[in-house]
């Protein structure tokens, strides 16, 4: 069953068009990767889904409803959560307060503080520290936890691997399995192609604001991705 569908999604920053007629479909329970070079429109795509960039109502369909143009907090209430690029934890809140803030919309579901600490046991010991005292990997865990606290049906993850050591990235991607096991659908934006394809069942490759290639990851072809990625 289709959870999310974008139809000719276009997005602008002022006069600059960042997305052109993007059609993406995400089925319930699946993990979909969005890959592409810098400024290909990946982050813009996620921000449009989250309501941070305006779009026409029918351009974004979530669970059969048009949600384009709704405000971000309305969209969180409908069940889409964002793990923003660069983590963006709140510096004057403790780790635990950051997590609690994620549940501001009070959506019911399987995730609560206890479950997040089970998923990321290291956060439990650090819970009273200011979020700025955490390492990059720990901050990323807290940011994912904060997103989960709103009990999303769709979790948008923007560049989880950014600036992290490979061993930490591996840990974080292992946790994604536990998240999808709860039935949460995930859209991953990544520059680390191998990592993204590994974790997903299908991928979309963006290039200069347009879709360049889409395929199931199991039958992808390295050369085709490279061509789509760089526009060769």
């Amino acid at each position, binding site marked *: 069953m289709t959870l999310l569908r974008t139809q000719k999604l276009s997005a602008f920053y002022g006069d600059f068009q960042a997305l052109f007629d993007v059609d993406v479909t995400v089925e319930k329970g699946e993990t979909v990767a969005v890959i592409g070079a810098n400024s290909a429109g990946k982050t813009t795509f996620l921000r449009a889904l989250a309501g941070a960039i305006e779009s026409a109502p029918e351009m974004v369909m979530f669970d059969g409803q048009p949600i384009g143009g709704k405000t971000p907090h309305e969209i969180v209430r409908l069940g889409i959560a964002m793990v923003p690029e660069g983590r963006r934890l709140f510096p004057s809140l403790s780790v635990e307060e950051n997590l609690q*803030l994620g549940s501001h*919309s009070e959506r019911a579901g399987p995730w609560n503080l206890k479950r997040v600490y089970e998923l990321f046991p290291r956060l439990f010991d650090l819970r009273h520290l200011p979020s700025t005292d955490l390492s990059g990997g720990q901050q990323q865990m807290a940011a994912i936890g904060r997103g989960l606290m709103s009990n999303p049906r769709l979790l948008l993850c923007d560049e989880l691997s950014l600036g992290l050591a490979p061993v930490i990235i591996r840990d974080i991607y292992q946790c994604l399995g536990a998240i999808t096991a709860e039935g949460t659908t995930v859209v991953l934006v990544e520059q680390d192609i191998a990592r993204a394809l590994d974790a997903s069942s299908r991928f979309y490759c963006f290039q200069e604001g347009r879709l360049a290639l889409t395929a199931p990851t199991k039958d992808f072809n390295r050369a085709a991705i490279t061509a789509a990625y760089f526009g060769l």
Partner: protein
Amino acid sequence: MNWVNILIQGALLGGFYALFAIGLSMSFGIMRLVNIAHGDLIVLSAYVALLVTENTGLDPFLSLVIVLPVMFALGYALQRGLLNQTLSGGLLPPLLVTFGISIIIQNGLLQAFGAYDHRLQEGAIETASLRFPGGLFVGVYPLVVFAIAVFSIASLQLLFYRTRLGRAFRAVSDDADTAELMGIDNRKLYALALGIAMVFTAIAGVLFGIRTIFSPSAGPIRLILAFEAVIIGGLGNMWGTLVGGIVLGVAQAVGAAVDPTWQILAGHLAFLAILIVRPNGLFPRTRD
């Protein structure tokens, strides 16, 4: 002993200035709104209390039961209906709009009440004093005002650090865009923030109206005192604002003791001196 007396009077006066400053500090801290109309809103609160006391026979303290909800509603509506629209365009639009509100309030009060001085009458407490050993007299009313200031700041701290709403206030203050992505309705939150700020502004206004005479043009000087208390204490730090108020009050009391014409000037000079030595105030909130 005279100097001890001066210091105590000055410090108690500082509680007053801190009360003036709370609402200003809150609206700047949460929505980066520099509210030029803040002083006039203090004076408006005093006039609302005047209307209530004249029409109901309640004394000024009891009139707060009506004045506080009225000012809360006014703050909520002002933010929701007007100021929210100004916040996305940088620092200048809210400055201009609140400057306009300031002029509207002053002229509206002039129309409605005339240019006369008014006072709120609270009775015996205004002149009562406590005698301490060593011939020290401390007015009951300044003590009550100081206690209210401390209580107000303490309750705001509790709100900020112990409640869901306070957590949301701090998150929005840190990063409004991300807060919205986490499910917070910033516009509604801002309206609540100005509503709550106006509750403290109204308390300050009524206490001000009991302490001294007021007229429609009394606002701007309260605004300056509030600004100075906030800046001396360090932006975003409520207890710092109390200290800032006390610094101002003590400086004024010392100035007045040297020469009565020096009272106001001494406060401003203390403010400038601190601004030169510590441009971020005494206790700036550290944040990386």
